[in-house]
């Protein structure tokens, strides 16, 4: 494979991989915020 083709592959998989991990982070944050909402008692503690 030529270097430019490798670069294109790197761009494709790199962006895809980065977005996939970030989307997983997004889902994790959303779930965590739903499961453990802020409660007023925390303020008292």
């Amino acid at each position, binding site marked *: 494979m030529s270097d*430019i083709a490798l*670069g294109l*592959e790197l761009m494709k998989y790199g962006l895809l991989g980065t977005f996939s*991990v*970030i989307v*997983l*982070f997004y889902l994790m*944050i959303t779930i965590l915020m739903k499961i453990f909402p802020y409660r007023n008692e925390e303020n008292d503690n």
Partner: protein
Amino acid sequence: MEQFAQLFEGVLLFKWQYLIMYAIGGVLIYLAIKKDYEPMLLLPIGFGAILVNLPFKAIWEYEPVLDETVTKIVNQFPALKDYFIENLNYVFENGQAYKVEPGVLQILFNSGILTELFPCLIFVAVGAMIDFSPLLKTPKMILFGAAAQFGIFFTILVALIMNKIFPGLGFDLKVAASIGIIGAADGPTSIFVASKFAKHLIGPISVAAYSYMSLVPIIQPPVIKALTTRKERMIRMEYKDVKVSKIVLILFPIFITIIAGIIAPSSVALVGLLMFGNLIRECGVLERLSKSAQNELSNLVTLLLGITIGSTMHYESFLSPTTLIILLMGLVAFVFDTAGGVLLAKLMNLFSKEKINPMVGAAGISAFPMSARIVQKMATKEDPQNFILMHAVGANVAGQLGSIVAGGMVLALVPWLLSL
């Protein structure tokens, strides 16, 4: 007469190229002191560049000493020569072996940069400094942390195309990846990747990364303006001040580490230590350690990192067209990072009822908190009542995560693609 000449050997060995390196070091010191551009890094880098370009390079390595025993061994077993050169700091001249002891800065380079220790320690400090709650309150902003890494991959491609046009540049995939990673807008990540793939280019790559990070206020506004209309820049975004529970703040760094570790194992050294620093900060029972990471650790490692990076700027490797091209590529990376973030926000606006101010996308680069501040400043300029700072901060801390993940992807994908 000979002894007299020895006294002035430094003058006799002086080269005109040193003067250029002093000027470059001087410019970096000037930018640090006068313009306040990343002074904690540019000043030590500038001074390191001067130190390593003095005759004899004594701060990098001591004068070679003849080692007769090794000379005999290598004369008997010539196959051992390469081993002595590569692993034991020997040089060979006229069949004689000379031991070259590393100087202070080479010891720091070998133990702090080649082992990736300094960038990793910096991440502990950075993690302890970052408050991720703006991101947890507006999780959608995390997508910009990925989009604003577009510049990394685009620049890798541009570097490879340049190499095709000018084959003498020597930009293979590994070198191109090290150059592209300047777009992570994150010094330690750039150093981490460059130390794996292109050790000989750590100097110019680090200088480019830190210089452009300090130039974000100059680079980003024109790109943002070129890609957005005034109407778009005036979009107001509602900010719900949702409070984040302590358990979420504690679980966040742990889960991020696990997810990143499973999906992108190469990024663990960076993500793991960033999140370790953050856990120390958020756990609430390690305040002393958190403060130490934020202050003492950060200051000490930054100090050593800067001067060590500066010491890689010897004229022989730095004064080349490659350095100029790397600096240029760094600019390309920052421009396309910004464009990537802005364009994703515009794309999201096509499908979303709640409009996003596209400028927030530009804050998805890792230059924290500068990028968020610029975005807010631009928003205020268009509409003094528009307050998008918290969204921009959310995108900006997401950029920290995105840049490390992208760095991990590059580290994992380059060897894989080369093995195909």
